[in-house]
């Protein structure tokens, strides 16, 4: 829908310089440089991070597998007898992709090129003509299957969310998620979930522009005009903008309705949505209802877990957004929808109705990729110019607000540290 973004040639040896110590100025170079991108693949995606792969519920049975990515490295995650395995999808022989399906069930995986076969754990189990043929030589005697398995990643699961790491340095997953983030994950993953499918959006912009977007409550009511246009009052909302305390790379934004006395559980709140007579109004506002299912009546919960997950609850729609970089100027966003295994049919229907709010055609989200592409197209030529992130800069401790860029500043500080900038 937009112009093809051409990346400028990487300026070799040009240092990336963040001129302010609080992350409030960001050089545009980081959004389009191939050199920066290559460094990210090494230092972030193959560095001390846990990368979201998907939900356990996507691969519910033994030997179920799913092809996905850690950064831009193709990997396969599979359910094994002992838990889960994740390996780089590249044959140890000549480098061909072993698994060619997106999803499936297989106890072993065989490369089509020379039929080297691997267990679902990623161990080499068979090499055709290993001992040669008709008395002629095969593989050298020194060849071992043990030394020629697939490149395995560490896999860890937290409340049904699957993550992988290339690095032995990455702290245990609960510690990596941190004390500020865990309660919010626990809130949404407190009982078994059911996978409802995914939708995919491809944007001609840098992946970090999307992470900035989900750490930016300031844009919400200004870019997304759906609520304003339809005069949907959201009175008395309580807000939170909380960064991870250790590295600032994860964060959570919430908006919560302050409940009126007598508001009973499990009641539709559609009646609380009032429209003014002089504006536009929805003929069928039911998709803006909310059945109370958590202690706190939070309408929006947006929680990026660095680097490739954003957990989302908007009304009753529940999504894990997987953010996958595709070169410096492109990313893919996969919206993994889920519900709970014990959902009533009414609740399931409401979740699907509210899918209209998010995703590639979402009433309150479709503009996000439009905005990130505008930044990509606006910045690529002036790599040394700077982004300005000053909103609430003098009040970095302030968390009960949506009018702040604090989470983005904290993100850039964490990014600088990981990248060595």
């Amino acid at each position, binding site marked *: 829908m*937009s112009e093809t973004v051409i990346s400028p040639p990487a300026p070799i040896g040009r240092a990336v310089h963040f001129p302010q110590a609080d992350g409030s100025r960001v050089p545009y170079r980081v959004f389009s440089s191939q050199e920066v991108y290559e460094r990210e693949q090494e230092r972030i995606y193959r560095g001390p991070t846990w990368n979201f792969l998907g939900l356990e519920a996507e691969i519910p049975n033994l030997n179920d597998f799913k092809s996905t990515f850690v950064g831009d490295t193709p990997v396969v995650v599979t359910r094994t007898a002992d838990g889960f395995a994740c390996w780089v999808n590249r044959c140890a022989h000549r480098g061909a992709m072993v698994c060619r399906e997106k999803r499936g069930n297989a106890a072993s995986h065989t490369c089509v090129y020379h039929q080297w076969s691997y267990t679902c754990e990623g161990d080499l189990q068979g090499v055709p003509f290993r001992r040669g043929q008709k008395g002629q030589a095969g593989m050298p005697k020194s060849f071992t299957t043990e030394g020629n398995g697939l490149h395995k990643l560490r896999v860890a699961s937290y409340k049904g969310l699957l993550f992988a790491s290339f690095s032995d340095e990455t702290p245990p997953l609960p510690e990596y998620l941190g004390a500020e983030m865990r309660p919010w994950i626990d809130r949404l993953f407190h009982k078994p979930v059911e996978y409802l*499918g995914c939708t*995919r959006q491809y944007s001609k912009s840098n992946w970090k522009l999307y992470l900035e977007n989900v750490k930016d409550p300031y844009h919400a009511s200004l870019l997304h005009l759906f609520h304003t246009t*339809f005069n949907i009052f959201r009175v008395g909302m309580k807000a939170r903008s909380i960064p991870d305390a250790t590295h600032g790379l994860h964060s959570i934004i919430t908006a919560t309705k302050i409940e009126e006395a007598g508001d009973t559980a499990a009641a539709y709140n559609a009646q609380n949505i009032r429209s003014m007579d002089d504006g536009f109004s929805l003929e069928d506002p039911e998709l803006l209802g909310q059945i109370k299912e958590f202690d706190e009546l939070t309408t929006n919960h947006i929680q990026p877990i660095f680097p490739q997950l954003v957990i989302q609850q908007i009304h009753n729609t529940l999504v894990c957004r997987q953010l996958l970089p595709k070169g410096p100027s492109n990313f*893919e966003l996969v919206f993994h929808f889920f519900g709970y295994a014990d959902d009533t049919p009414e609740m399931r229907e409401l979740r699907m109705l509210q899918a*209209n709010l998010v995703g590639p055609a979402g009433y309150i989200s479709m503009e996000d990729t*439009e905005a990130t592409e505008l930044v990509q197209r606006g910045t690529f030529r002036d790599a040394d110019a700077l982004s300005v992130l000053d909103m609430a800069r003098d009040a970095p401790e302030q968390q009960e607000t949506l009018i702040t860029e604090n989470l983005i500043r904290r993100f850039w500080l964490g990014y600088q540290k990981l990248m060595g900038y």
Partner: protein
Amino acid sequence: MTSKTEKLQLWLELSELQARYVSALDNDQLEAWTEFFTEDCRYEIIPKENVDAGLPAPVIYCRNRKMLRDRVLSLRHANIFEGHTYRHMTSGLVVTSNDGETITTTSSYIVVITGQNGESNVYQAGRYDDELVRDETGELRYRKKRVVFDTLRVQTLLATPI
């Protein structure tokens, strides 16, 4: 029993309806687009991978014509997206069932999109799985339209319906 002539006549009527349907979308007549549906219609845009896996997650899901009108109103007044034009090419329209009241069809489509810079690209390939009934005046209307798209990665965003 339906004669061959009657079958072909119905096929022509369905083809003509589909031609008017895509013409409304291709020529920015979104308000008129909602008129092709029954009041109790179900309109859905869903990726093929979910349909194949038996999973329900949609890109757009409307369960009555009010929701279609709401979608159009929102596109006209609330949502922000780059101005663009669609051109739908349809083919392979086949009547899959007809019990005299309800007709089901399947057909293929390609949508070419042209943005502000004048570049045209294939935006989506997919199929329509439709269910039609006649209204009180005898006109055919869509009671169900399931737009199943093969082009799984939606480029940038999806504003205009398919």
